[in-house]
C-alpha cells in the first residue's frame, strides 16, 4: 500500500510536466507552415477562401492562440484529441488502432535487451578482463555504434532475401486469414527482426550497466560474508548479488523508455509496421499536425506510465525505498 502511495505521488508530480510538454508543443506547432484547414483543403483538391474561413470557424481556428490552447487543454481533459483530416477519423481512434503493434514491439525488445543484457553482463563480470569479458564488451561497443535502421535493412537482406526464413516487413500476413494460435505465430514471426533491431542498442547499454553494477556489488562486504559462509559461487550470485545489481538496470528502463519509443519510429518505418512510430512519421510527412500533437501526448503518457511501473518494481526490489518514505 505504501509502495502504491509513493509511486502515486511520483505520478501526480508528473502531471505538471505533461501540461508543460503539451503547452510547449502546441505553441511550437503554431509556427508550422499551414494548419489543419490547409491540409483538409489540399486533401479535397483545393477550395475557395470562404470555405476555408467557414472551416476555420468550425474548428475554432479563428480564435486567438491562448483561447485555442485553452480549448485544446479542456478537450484533452475529456480525452478528446481532436479530428484528423487526413484519416477522416478522431485522432484518438487513429492512435488507438496503431498502439498495439508499438506496445508489443517495445515489450518484446525490452524483454530481449533486459534478459540478454543481464546474462551477458553477469558472464562478463564473472570473467572480468579475461576473454569472455573482452569479447562481450567489444560486441557491446559495436552494437552501441550500429545504426538501428541499417541493422534492420541488413537483417532483411540476410534473413528475408537470401535465407528466406522470416518475412521482410508488415505486422501479419493479410493474404491468408489465420485465426487463434496460428495468427499468434504469424505475428511473432513478423516481429522477430524488428525486436532484434530495436533491442540491439539497448542490449549494449544494459550489458554494460549490468557488468559495472555486478563488479560494484561483488566487492561489497556482505558478498564476502556469503562466500565465507560457504555458499557456492552460483548461490552467491543468484541469491545475493543479483538483486542489488539489478537496481541500476531497473532505473535504466524508466530512463530509456522515451528513447525506445523514439527508436520505434525508425524501426517501424524499416519494417513497415503499422504502429505509433510510423504514424508519427506519416503525420510529419502529411502535415497532419493534430495527429502529431496527439502522438506527443500519448507518447509522454506512455513514458510516464512506464516510469510508474518502474517505481513499483524498484520499491519491490529495494525495501529501503518504502522505509524511507
Amino acid at each position, binding site marked *: 500500500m505504501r509502495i502504491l502511495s509513493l509511486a502515486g505521488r511520483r505520478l501526480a508530480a508528473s502531471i505538471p510536466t505533461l501540461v508543460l510538454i503539451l503547452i510547449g508543443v502546441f505553441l511550437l506547432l503554431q509556427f508550422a507552415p499551414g494548419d489543419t484547414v490547409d491540409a483538409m483543403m489540399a486533401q479535397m483538391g483545393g477550395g475557395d477562401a470562404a470555405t476555408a474561413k467557414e472551416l476555420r470557424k468550425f474548428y475554432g481556428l479563428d480564435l486567438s492562440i491562448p483561447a485555442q490552447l485553452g480549448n485544446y487543454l479542456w478537450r484533452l481533459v475529456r480525452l478528446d484529441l481532436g479530428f484528423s483530416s487526413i484519416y477522416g477519423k478522431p485522432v484518438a481512434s487513429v492512435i488507438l488502432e496503431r498502439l498495439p503493434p508499438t506496445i508489443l514491439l517495445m515489450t518484446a525488445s525490452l524483454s530481449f535487451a533486459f534478459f540478454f543484457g543481464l546474462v551477458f553482463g553477469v558472464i562478463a563480470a564473472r570473467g572480468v578482463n579475461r576473454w569472455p569479458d573482452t569479447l562481450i564488451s567489444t560486441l557491446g561497443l559495436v552494437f552501441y555504434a*550500429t545504426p538501428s535502421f541499417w541493422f534492420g535493412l541488413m537483417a532483411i537482406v540476410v534473413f528475408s532475401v537470401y535465407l528466406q526464413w522470416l518475412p521482410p516487413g508488415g505486422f501479419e500476413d493479410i493474404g491468408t486469414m489465420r485465426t487463434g494460435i496460428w495468427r499468434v505465430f504469424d505475428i511473432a514471426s513478423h516481429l522477430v527482426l524488428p525486436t532484434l533491431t530495436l533491442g540491439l542498442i539497448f542490449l549494449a547499454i544494459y550489458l554494460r550497466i549490468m557488468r559495472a553494477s555486478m563488479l560494484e556489488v561483488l566487492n561489497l562486504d556482505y558478498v564476502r560474508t556469503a562466500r565465507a559462509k560457504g555458499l557456492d559461487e552460483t548461490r552467491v550470485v543468484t541469491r545475493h548479488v543479483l538483486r542489488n545489481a539489478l537496481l541500476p538496470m531497473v532505473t535504466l528502463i524508466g530512463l530509456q523508455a522515451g528513447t525506445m519509443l523514439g527508436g520505434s519510429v525508425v524501426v517501424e518505418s524499416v519494417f513497415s509496421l503499422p504502429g505509433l512510430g510510423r504514424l508519427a512519421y506519416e503525420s510529419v510527412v502529411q502535415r497532419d499536425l493534430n495527429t*502529431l500533437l496527439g502522438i506527443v501526448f500519448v507518447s509522454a503518457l506512455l513514458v510516464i506510465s512506464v516510469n510508474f511501473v518502474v517505481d513499483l518494481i524498484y520499491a519491490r526490489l529495494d525495501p529501503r525505498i518504502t522505509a524511507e518514505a
Partner: protein
Amino acid sequence: MDAVKRYFRSPAAVAGLILLLIVIAMAISAGWFYPRDPLALAGRPLVWPFSNPRFLLGTDNSGRDIAAQIFYGARISLLIGGVATAIAILIGILVGAFAGYYGGWVDNVLMRITEAFQTLPNFVLLLVLVAVFGSTLTTVTIAVGVVSWPAPARLTRAEFLSLRNREFVQAGRTLGMKNIQLIFREILPNALPPVIVYASVVMAVAILLESALAFLRLSDPNVASWGNLIGLGRDVLRVQWYVSAIPGIAILVTVLAVSLVGQGLNDALNPRLKGR
C-alpha cells in the same frame, strides 16, 4: 601529463583515436580526391564495388559515386555531430549551472523543463521540430542539439551541487566576487571535465539521430549524407544491398571511434574507476 600517458596505454582508446583521425582525414581530403560535386551524375547506375577502378565503391541508383559520397558524408556527419554537441553542451551547462548554483525556485523551474524534455521521446520531438522548421542543414543541426541537452544539464547540475559550498567557493564569496563570476570563473572549470567526457556520448547519439532522420528522408536532401544514401539504397535493397551497406559501415565506424575516444578519456581522467 599522467592522463595522456594513461590514455595511450589503453589499446581501445588508441584504436578509437586512429579511427577518428581517419574519418577526420576523409572529411578534410574529400575535395582533394573528389573535386566534383558528390551528388552529380558520375557514371552508369548500380555499378558493383571493386568492379570498375573508376568507382572503387561502386555507384548508387542514380549513378553517383558512392566513395565520393562517403568522403563528403564524413564532413556532414562530423559537422552536424560537432555543432549539435556544442549546442547541447552549451545549453546543458547554462541550465545545469544556474539550477545547481542557485537552487530553490530557479532549480525547480529549470528541472521541470528538463524533465519535460526527457519525458518526451527525443526522436518524436526531433520530428516535431523538423515538421515546424523544415529540414535544412542548419535547422536539422540546431534541432538535434536542442533535443540532446537534458543529460548534460543534469550532469552539470550534480557537479555544481557538490561544488557550490566548497571552501574555495566560500573564499571567493568572502573576497566579494559576484555570483556570475563564481559560477563561470570558479566552479565551472572544476565541474567541466566529466561534462566534456560526456560530450562524446552526446556526439555519438547526435550522429545516429541525424543519420536516422536522413534515412527517413527528413534531413537535408541537398547534401551528401550517409543517412540519405542508406535511404536511397533501400529502394534497391534486394539485389544491390551494397548501396545501403557501405554508408552504414561508415556511420558504425565513426560512432564507434567517438565512443572509444570518450571512454578512453574517461578512464584516463578518472583512473580510479577504470574497468567499470
